[in-house]
């Protein structure tokens, strides 16, 4: 992984490396707290996977391996920034303060959103690949008009990088010099399709041709992801325009719980990436440089366990939505067809209830 174009501040072994453009600004305390975030988010992911296996979730999209990218980027945000996720940004949601059980509503198939996007300044998940990237640029155009000291961070994958919407978003962001940071997690797969199908050259290079900088960062390096994202957001807030960040990482798990990765990739590759685990890397750093004690790690582990238990309880407590709720919020103003449908369904439900 010696790559001149890759920003790295920490080796897979957890040793610091220097970079001409970026230096780590995080204290030991901050790093430990971000370590905690990564562990909790991984625990959330594992718990969700088992909930899915037990039939409690319809689907789950795991992020194992991408915790460094997400917590790094997520913690680089200022409170007033706004984020536009895909369906896989559980780490970002966590950083934004979205209640973890809300993240699971979509996957429990009880909601098509899950949380209050204005409250957490975190847009609802977008499943149609690339749509949210244009929405993010539009939001950033609003920031410009408000003269606000805010930026937008939007996410997409290596697969989605081929969608017209993402590419048009590049055109617009450049043309209007909007305060938006494009964060592409290149986890090397779009379901089964390798990222080489989407681009024969590193993805971050695309930005330059649209007139703004692109940076490739080691996506399994929390410190580097944090610094690169922070700098890009600061630059955006200061009127410097867009940046594209390609976080080069690896999807350790399946695409979703419906997926069978053995059909398209070999174990050996996965094994190689195990040695680049973003969590282990930070743990090694904490031990080496900050003498963090086992007790601290144990405390985090325990907290994660408690977190998982509560999460499970919260999810199991999520009842089936009232079918009539499908008629809510379709429109802001009254609509005859919605009201007719509501009446019809209410009558049918009453009829069934009467039997």
């Amino acid at each position, binding site marked *: 992984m010696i790559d001149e174009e890759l920003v790295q501040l920490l080796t897979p072994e957890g040793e610091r490396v220097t970079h001409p453009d970026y230096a780590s600004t995080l204290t030991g305390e901050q790093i430990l707290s971000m370590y905690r975030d990564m562990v909790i988010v991984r625990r959330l992911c594992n718990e969700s996977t088992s909930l899915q296996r037990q039939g409690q979730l319809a689907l789950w999209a795991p992020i194992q391996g991408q915790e460094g990218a997400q917590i790094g980027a997520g913690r680089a945000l200022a409170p007033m920034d706004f984020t536009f996720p895909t369906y896989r940004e559980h780490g970002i949601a966590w950083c934004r303060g979205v209640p973890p059980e809300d993240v699971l509503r979509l996957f429990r198939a009880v909601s098509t959103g899950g949380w*209050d996007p204005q409250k957490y300044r975190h847009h609802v998940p977008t499943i149609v690949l690339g749509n949210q990237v244009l*929405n993010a640029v539009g*939001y950033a155009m609003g920031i410009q*008009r408000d003269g606000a000291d805010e930026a937008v961070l939007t996410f997409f994958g290596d697969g989605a990088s081929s969608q017209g*919407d993402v590419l048009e978003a590049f055109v617009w962001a450049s043309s209007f010099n909007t305060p938006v940071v494009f964060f592409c997690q290149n986890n090397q797969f779009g379901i089964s399709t390798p990222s080489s199908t989407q681009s024969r050259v590193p993805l971050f290079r695309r930005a330059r041709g649209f007139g703004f900088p692109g940076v490739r960062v080691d996506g399994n390096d929390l410190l580097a992801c944090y610094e690169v994202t922070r700098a890009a957001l600061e630059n955006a807030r200061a009127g410097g325009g867009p940046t594209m960040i390609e976080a080069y990482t690896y999807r350790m798990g399946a695409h979703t719980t419906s997926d069978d990765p053995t059909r398209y990739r070999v174990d050996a590759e996965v094994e190689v990436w195990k040695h680049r685990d973003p969590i282990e890397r930070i743990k090694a750093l904490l031990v080496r440089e900050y003498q963090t004690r086992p007790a601290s790690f144990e405390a985090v582990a325990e907290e994660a366990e408690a977190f998982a238990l509560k999460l499970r309880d919260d999810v199991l407590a999520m009842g089936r939505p009232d079918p009539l709720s499908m008629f809510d919020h379709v429109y802001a103003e009254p609509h005859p067809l919605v009201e007719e449908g509501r009446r019809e369904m209410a009558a049918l439900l009453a009829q069934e209830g009467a039997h």
Partner: protein
Amino acid sequence: MTTTTMTMAKALNEGLRRAMERDPKVLLMGEDIGKLGGVFRITDGLQKDFGQDRVVDTPLAESAIVGTAVGLAIRGYRAVCEMQFDGFVFPAFDQIVSQVAKLQKRSDGVYTMGLVIRLPFQGGIGAIEHHSESPEAYFAHTPGLRVVSCSTPNDAYWMIQQSIESDDPIIFCEPKSRYWEKGEVDLENPPQGLYDAVVRRVGTDVTVVGYGSSVKTMLRAAETAQAEGVSLEVIDLRGIAPIDFPTLVASVQKTGRLIAVQEAPRTASISSEIVAELTERCFYSLRAPGLRVAGYHVPYPPARIEEEYRPSVGRILDAVDRVMDFEG
């Protein structure tokens, strides 16, 4: 009552201006709408008065126009997007049906998608391909959207303002062939609700309903029919989605006969909807089946023969004969 005579193009321009004056969050986006004032000059002069941040000449990409309008709506802005022509709305179709139509629901009502997509639609101006489409049925079929169409300068003036004020996303269909026709505009009092169908001519024998440029054609047909002793009640639909069925039902209960007119092709269209729903609501009132006069099932033809494609007075009268003579 202060009324002024102006073209529909000017009425739209004035309506946009009033909306922008009233609400600083209103902004216009589109291709060539600034300096040029739009290819139909609907936004003429607005960039000069409201600046480039509120009248935005965009890069050339419709998906992006609508996609960024969504983001602006989330931020509290109200974007009025101009699609240069009907046939160029399709690159934006995904953003419209996947995001615009669904985000109020997906955010549990936290977001309002108060945006307007202006479409110069229908044919009749001798244009080349993709410049004369009638895509309204696609949008009417999509829950989460609303669709309206104006047929007079007065409606244009008021309906564009009402649409911009609405917290719901609205596809605003402008009959481009009527842009340059003049009419009275009442600058003080809005005519009626945005979705209300309006009886443009009272009649007793057949209800003829349509929207946009068809209204004038229907009125002409009514003149001719009158001369032949048949009285048509002409209804301007205005609200394409939702449709104001109570007004249509009242008319059909009176006339017992129905013809729905549109330029769009017939299959799974607005006229299909009107006939199906009114058949259900007025089964015993109908003395003949509701008929549809629509575009043929072909791509919009070269302009030299477009008048044979579009619902004409002749085709409407032909349908009138069929419902009047109907014996099954």
